């Protein structure tokens, strides 16, 4: 293994004082072209709809404005459990300004609660995604008490109330006496929920007008309308924006990645659910027949005790193989991840369990031929042999790495289709469109189910 993450690593600290293994830069000349990735970057500037014109085209932007026309005097409230950190807050931080620009008045509220509340909701979250859990009366009382406190604190005068995820779900009890439409946006996988927790939660969910899920397979049988909103990426974010060749090269130089040879990459936390050891096994099988390097870029090894264990397992599996480059990066390394993905010849996401799999979305958006496991929301993104390759085993993954590295025309075709698939279905602007459509539908604007 190339000892980048180990022997060369000084200890850097993030804003929380957490240490990260960080590789030394290769050359001072290269360092001048990118920032020091050990320091969090400044927040990016606010984006406007017109910034997306080159990606979407004028006609699609006009379509968004047309959809928003009937909603200009309508108001929307969003409620979730955190203003920073996590996918929902990240999404709302992008969505709210764009809707505001479209003159849809939006108010974003965050629920408050003590540690006991968030311990209970964290347990609920895990149980709803299938973990074992014994629901107690005490946990129910804590959940309801904090929801009641937030209900008293908040006002619900808007036309549309959107509640995100289970934590604030019981706020729907405030709907009596309001004329608003209430929508529950569920971001988690409810395909195999703990029955006790789901039975408790569904009494609230059924009081909404409609629910939104991220994949058909995450939904439940409910007496209310259920809509499908795929998660999305922002094409102009640091992680997904176009990068110049110089930046990509500088990042590769920094991490001692040889761009003259094929690069196979998996970007994910050091988590067993992402099967990083399986990726190394697949890579080693593939490399018997085709020259390539493997980049395993991720994080979570410093702030998650299990992550550190998994990282060690990954290092053990890699051994002293100089073609396996393991990078434990801090969470703000969006540009570096972007550059690594863009430098890759093939991207792998060999998860055993997955939510929607936004790292797959990111890879597809960059036009990269992508091999991923058929789990969670990945089959929504990868149509086998059309927008990417679905695999079910180490051996299958190894074969497809070999195939794509030796059939570049097919690989390029997959990448092109994958990017178009993301453009059509998984971009932030598509999500803006979905919300506008939903607001119109709930608002009683004319819709139809057939042409």
């Amino acid at each position, binding site marked *: 293994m190339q000892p980048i993450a180990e022997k060369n690593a000084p200890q850097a600290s993030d804003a929380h004082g957490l240490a990260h293994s960080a590789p030394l830069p290769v050359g001072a000349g290269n360092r001048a072209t990118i920032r020091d990735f050990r320091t969090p970057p400044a927040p990016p500037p606010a984006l406007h709809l017109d910034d997306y014109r080159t990606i979407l085209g004028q006609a699609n932007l006009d379509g968004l404005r047309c959809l928003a026309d009937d909603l200009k005097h309508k108001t929307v409230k969003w409620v979730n459990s955190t203003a920073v950190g996590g996918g929902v807050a990240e999404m709302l931080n992008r969505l709210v300004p764009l809707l505001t620009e479209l003159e849809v008045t939006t108010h974003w509220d965050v629920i408050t609660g003590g540690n006991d509340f968030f311990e209970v909701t964290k347990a609920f979250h895990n149980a709803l995604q299938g973990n074992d859990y014994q629901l107690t009366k005490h946990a129910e009382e804590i959940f309801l008490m904090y929801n009641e406190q937030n209900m008293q604190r908040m006002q619900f005068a808007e036309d549309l109330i959107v509640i995100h995820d289970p934590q604030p779900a019981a706020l729907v009890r405030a709907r009596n006496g309001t004329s608003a439409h209430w929508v529950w946006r569920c971001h988690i996988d409810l395909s195999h929920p703990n029955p006790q927790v789901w039975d408790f939660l569904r009494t609230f969910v059924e009081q909404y007008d409609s629910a939104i899920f991220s994949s*058909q397979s995450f939904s439940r049988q409910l007496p209310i309308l259920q809509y499908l909103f795929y998660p999305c990426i922002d094409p102009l974010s640091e992680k997904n924006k176009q990068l110049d060749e110089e930046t990509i090269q500088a990042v590769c130089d920094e991490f001692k990645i040889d761009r003259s040879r094929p690069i196979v990459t998996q970007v994910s936390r050091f988590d067993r659910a992402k099967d990083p050891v399986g990726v190394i096994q697949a890579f080693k099988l593939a490399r018997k027949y085709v020259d390539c390097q493997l980049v395993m870029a991720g994080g979570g090894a410093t702030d998650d005790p299990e992550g550190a264990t998994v990282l060690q397992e990954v290092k053990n599996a890699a051994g002293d193989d100089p073609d396996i480059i393991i990078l434990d990066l801090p969470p703000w390394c969006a540009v570096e991840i972007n550059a690594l993905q863009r430098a890759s010849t093939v991207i792998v996401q060999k998860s055993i369990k997955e939510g929607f799999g936004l790292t797959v979305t990111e890879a597809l958006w960059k036009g990269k031929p992508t091999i991923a496991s058929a789990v969670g929301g990945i089959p929504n993104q990868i149509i086998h042999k059309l927008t990417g390759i679905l695999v079910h085993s180490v051996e299958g993954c190894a074969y497809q790495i070999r195939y794509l590295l030796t059939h570049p025309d097919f690989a390029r075709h997959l990448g092109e*289709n994958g990017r178009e698939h993301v453009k059509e279905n998984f971009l932030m602007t598509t999500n803006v469109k979905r919300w506008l459509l939903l607001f119109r539908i709930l608002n009683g604007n*004319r819709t139809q189910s057939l*042409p």
Partner: protein
Amino acid sequence: MGAEAMPAPEPRRPGRPFYFNTSEHLLRISREKATTLPELLDALRHCPAASVFQHTFRTLQEHHFIRQGFSNDFAHWALSDCNEPALAERLAGVDVREFTSLEDLRQALVGILEDHLGQNPGGRPRTADEPFYFCVADIVVMPTSFAPDSLRGFVDGLRQVSIHSIHHHFIEARLRLKLMSNDFSQWLLEEMQLPDAARAVNRIDIYTLTMENVRQQIIRIVERALA
């Protein structure tokens, strides 16, 4: 020394402009779900027509960038989740352009499934890798700023509208018109008296082209008519 080339005269003015509209869709997850082929058949018999529309006509719009190998969601599921290539081929061969009625389209799909299950009777049906979730779409039709009253303006509109608008007028239109045609061909025929161009546009093969390719082909046909 020749005279400066004169632009070809614009053909006749249409009686009515071509109003480019577009449609947007919001997916709703419906109750029907299938985990085996017999369950798919049962659900297909009873699902709303809007689901048949979603998984045939509409899915073509969602996958407009695919040139080859994608026809409808039922065929895709039969192949990728049921490992039934022969059935998948037959389902994929159902051409939505041959239908102006969703009930007729439903019957065609049901007939193929019945035939396949009839030829492969007995035994416990194999469970698919992933269930088939039936969906429907809530559709919003919107105007665009393009309403040309000339052939040149029509070409300009074709260039500038979204792919969704092309799909709306070219693919979905036949369900509205109840004709084996599309809005573009009808306008070229009825308003511009260009039957050859109308016919050529209607013959464009949507199953071997991306929707962007379709747009370009329509433009080429109309420009030839202008020349």
